[in-house]
Structure formats: structure tokens, C-alpha cells
């Protein structure tokens, strides 16, 4: 049971820290992308891509959390 608790905490840390990292990256990119799109509407598509790029980081966290969870 103690193991399960530790695993659960591990899973939480994995996804939580990955989500924080994503948010941090998106904060900067998002601000710049909105600025660029405001100046030139054609930048919207490109801005969106840059904006969502870091989202993969949180998915790595999710996958690890999930793999850990199946071990519980």
C-alpha cells in the first residue's frame, strides 16, 4: 500500500511538473504570438503552431504518469 502511495505521488509529480513546464513555455510564446498576430493577421496560423508546441511536454508527463498508474 505504501508503494502504491509513493507511485501515486510519483505520477502526480510527473504530470504536475510537466504541466508547469508547458505553462511556463506557453506563457512566453503565447504573449509573443498574440503580438505578432495583432500586427499581421497572417501570422495567426504560425502563432498557433508555436503556441501549442510545448503542449507535447505535458503529454510526456501524462504518459509517464499513466505508465506509473498501471503499476499501482
Amino acid at each position, binding site marked *: 500500500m505504501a508503494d502504491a502511495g509513493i507511485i501515486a505521488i510519483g505520477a502526480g509529480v510527473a504530470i504536475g511538473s510537466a504541466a508547469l513546464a508547458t505553462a511556463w513555455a506557453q506563457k512566453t510564446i503565447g504573449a509573443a504570438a498574440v503580438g505578432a498576430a495583432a500586427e499581421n493577421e497572417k501570422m495567426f496560423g504560425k502563432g498557433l503552431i508555436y503556441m*501549442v*508546441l510545448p*503542449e507535447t511536454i505535458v503529454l510526456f508527463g501524462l504518459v509517464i504518469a499513466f505508465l506509473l498508474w498501471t503499476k499501482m
Partner: protein
Amino acid sequence: MFKPQEMTRTLLLGAKQDLEHTIELLHSLDIVHIIDFKAPDADQTLHLGAPTIKASGVSQHLLKVRSSAQLLQLNTENQKISQKHSEKQVQQDIALQIQDMEQNIQSLMEAKTRLEEHFRKLDERIRQLEPFASMDIPLEDYQGYGHLLVFTGYVRDLKKLTDTLPTLTPDYELFTSGAEDQMIGLFIVKHHGEDAHKLLNDCGFTEVKLPEGTGLPKQFIEKWTEQKKELSEKLLQTTKDILECRKRYAEFIFASEEYLTIEVQKAEAPVLFGTTEHSFLIDCWIPTQQLPHVTETIEKELNGALYIQQVTSTHDDEPPTLLKNPKPVRRFEYLLELYSLPNYRDIDPSFLLSFIFPLFFGLMIGDIGYGILLILFGVLFMKLFKESEGFTNIGWYIIIAGIFSSIFGLFLFGDMFGLPFMLTHAAEGEAAYSWSSLLGIHIPIPSIIHKMESLGMTQLLVISIIAGSLHLGLGLLIGFFVERKHNKKHAITKIGLLMVLIALALLIFVMADWTIGQWIKPLRGTAVEPLLWGTLIPLVKSGISLGGLIVPYITLVFGILGILIIMVVAGGFGLVEVLEITSHLMSYTRLAAICVAKAAMAFAFNMIGLGLILSGNILIGILGVILLIFMQLMVFALGALSSGIQAVRLHYVEFFMKFYKGEGLRFNPFGYKRKYTSTE
């Protein structure tokens, strides 16, 4: 469908006397994309053409029409008119009416501005006089004293002023308005002026400057108010006249603006051509399919006066992009162009986008309730924004995604608004609801995948990886086909990456053996059984054990071979691409992540809402209904937004990066889409 329309570079050569006729003809054809002429440095004989003689006259007329349209606040785009005007008629009308129209509109506008200015001035003067009106002292009495100082303005504390003033001096006179704003006029002997000023400041005095003039303010105000009334009547009449004028000239303005724009376009066209003293040269792109028609028409109309030469295009050429897709797919060109217009040499992915995008979108929502809401929302969106092309397209995507979502909800997940239709076994939560248990009737729609159970989540992750492998594999294959002619190195790298992708996918499939094994079970006993269980499965499954994880030989072979190919072709830097493809494959797990996250949110809200509704207390029940509707709408909005964005992203980032270059030049034929005029 998968390539932009083929273009042929064509040179048209003719004598200058045929120039105007040629321009007319090309304009009416509306299918020739003219390339801006750039004189080769060495060639001194060819020059840039000059606009025709009528250019300046037509431009001036156009300027007049546009300024009139602006003055009348007429938007010349997308207006409805009774019938199309014939070009000849418009031409005559312009000659007859344009001067009159301009004068009429200008004089009306000037009159309006004059009246407004007068009105504003009167208003300003009344505003200045108003504070003095209630004191009934002629304006001249406030000034011109040798021994008296006069203060006029508002005080906040009138009582303090009236109480303290007598202690300063008895030689003063104070007039007050009696109104709430406490306007005062204080006449006081000069040598007490400073004390009075101090006192006034203490009482919160704000000075109001005396307006110029003589006489009783009240009388003036009455007079001016009367004048203002007359003015506003006149103003109303002028505005009515302007509206009348707007109505009278609207159609004329629309038609003549269009006609003159076309004329200017034609008159300035030679600027795009190369010319010598007696001849001209037009360099253009014509869709190859239309070429015979175009050549034939030119030959016929100009009696062979134009020399037509087709040029073989080189790799340096930048042909314009004209996409050709069936109508339902054409709506997805907008989504593609939001990223970038395809390059002429690109594969046009609109068709793939048109069903994979809604498929992913629908899978992430995966609920019949939200699916139907999406369809309704999409229809509403298209109705509300039918003027905007972009928004109607988005509405269309939402509808298609809604259909996919409903299909997934009905046949795969068996749920509506986050609630399953039936519970096949005891659910993991302590209080589980289903539509069958809530409505008390058995609804035989099973959930093949339970989003809220660990097995279901694993299955969804496996589905995501399968979707990702297929999607990325398709992207790499297209990339190979695009690159094989232009850049052999890139093409071979794509093959290497494809091998790495297969290796990765197989490794994951072996890891998820128990999930996939379950799905392919129904295939046992069919014709493919010997192939699957006899050859393929043992081949994929055999491998070496690394720390408890079985790595199939086939993965090792494909992986090592792929990496070797990449390293040989692209060098050590190619390894970055190997890492990239791995992260891209993982990126598809967002399909599962969003699907589960949305389901979990709906599950939690349903537990809260239904708990309240079924509590037995009517008031709490009503509160529960309101809360549940609100929470469900929130799940719907958040789910639809994130699913849409993530589905777009999987295309823009993961898929397009494998083959798509974009930054195409839009095919812009020399011509005009007439709305208000016709040539007949």
C-alpha cells in the same frame, strides 16, 4: 485533387495597335495570371509598359465615386441591387451624372457641416451663459468698476461663505442662483479682495469666466434656444436629404465603382507588360487545362495577330497555386490557408484534412450528446455568420466533427453527456449513474471503451498511437513522394524516419499486446487467421528481453536500419529528427488525454448535479438542474475548444511538417468578378 492545378507558362507577343483589344480579351477570359514584367538587365529594347491614355481620366472618376461613397457612408461590397446594370448604361450615366452627383453630395455635406458647426457654437455659448441665467444681472453689470472686485463661480460651502463674509467687511453684495449647484456673484470692495479670495478658496470656489456680451443672460438663452430648435429642424431636413440622396445614388455608385475599377484595372494593365516601341510582351501563367480554350479564343478574336509561345517552366519559376477540390473539400482549403497556401509543387492536403481533422476532433469529444450539440452549434454558427466566409467554414467543420463525435459516442463509447447508456458491470465509482438506470428503461447501447476505467484509458492510448503512426506514416510517405524529384537526400531521410516510426509503433503494439490482442480476436477463424497468427504475430512478438521489456527483433532491425540510413544521408544531425519523430508519435496521445479529461470533467459534474437532483428536496433539485445545465455547457465549450485546437495542431505541427512547404503564390487571374454590372 491532391495537386494544385497544373500551370503552363505562356508568352503572348503582339503589335501595339492590338494592345487594347488584347487587354479586353484577357480581362473577359479571367483565367490568365500575369507575371510582373522585369526587364532583363542586358536587354535595352524591352521596357516596362505605361498605362494607357484613359488611365488618368478613369482614375479621377473613380476617385470621385469613391469619395462620394465614403461621404454617404456606402459600403460598396456585397450589396444587393435590383438588377445588374449594363456597362454601356453605366458609361452613359457616368458621363451625365457624375458631376451633378458630386456637387449635390458635396453641397449637402457642406450644409450639414455648417449647420452642425453653428449648432455646436450656440450650444457652447448657452453652456457658458447658463450659470449666470438664474442671477438676473445683465452681463455688463459684472464689469467696469474702479473700486469693486467681482467673483463669479461655484462654491461648495455656501453657508460658510455667507456666515464669514460679514466678518470681513460690510461692503459687499452677494448674489446666489438659489439652484443646487450654488452659483454665486460676489461684489466686494477692492482692498478686501485678497481676503475674499482666500475665503472663497476655503469654501471650495471654482471660478466661472464671464462670457462676452451685454444684456440679460436669460434673454439670450431663450433666443439662442429658439435658434437651436430651428437649426435642429434644418439639420434633420438636411440629414433626410442626404439619406434621400444616398438612396437615389446608391445603385449608381455601386455600378459605376465596379465599372471604373475594371476600367482602371484594364488601363493600368500595361504596367505589367514588357514593351518595345511597336510591340508588347505578356508573360503569364495559364491553367494547362484551360490552355487550348484560351489559345483558341485569342486566335479567333484577334485573327492570329498575337503570337503565343508556351515556355517550359524551370525549377526557379514560381507558378501560382490554384487548388481544385470538390465542394465539400473546398471548405477545408480555408483551414489549410490559415496555415499557409500550398506551394505549386506541394501536395494539396485539403482532402486528407477534410476527413482526418473532423475524425480526430470527433474522437476527442466522442459523445453523442455533445456531438448533437456540436451539429446544432455549427448550423447556428453558419446561419449567424453567413456573410463571413471564414466563420461559415468553421461552422461547417463543427458540423462534420459533430457527426463524427456522435458516431463515436454511439458505437464506441456508448455515452451521452458523459453518462453511459448502460452499465455492463459494477462501475468503479461508488455511486454510478447510467441513462438506463436514470430513465428506468433498458437502452441496449454498450460502451465498447469505458473512458473512465484504466482498461479504457489504455485502449484509448493505443488507439491514439495507432492513429499517430498511420497519420505520421502517411505524412512521411507523401514527403518522400514530394521530395524524390527535388531532393534525393531529403527523400531518403523520410524513408529512414518511416522505418524508425514503424519500429517504434511495433514496440508499443507489443507492449500493449493484451489490448490489441483483444481487438483482433474476432478475426480468429477467418481467412486471415493463418497469416496473422501463423506468421505476422509470432514475427512481431519474437524479440529479446531488455529489463523485462520485450524488444521485437523487427523493431531492432527497422530501428537500427532507419537510424543508419538517416545518419549516412543527413549525418549526426539526423538523430535530432529521430528524436522528433518519437516526440511527434507521443504527441498523438493528446487524443486520449483530451478524451479522458473531458469525460472525467463531465463525470464529476454529473455526480454533483445528479446527486442534487435525486436528493428528494424540490428546491435542491431545481438548483441541481440549473447547476447541471451550466456545468454541462462548460464541459461542452471547453471540450469543443480544446479538441478543435488540438486536432488543428496535430495537422499543422505533426502532419504538415513531414511534407508541406506552403507559402504558395495565390493564382490571381487578370479579370474581375462582376456583381453590379454586366457586359451585355
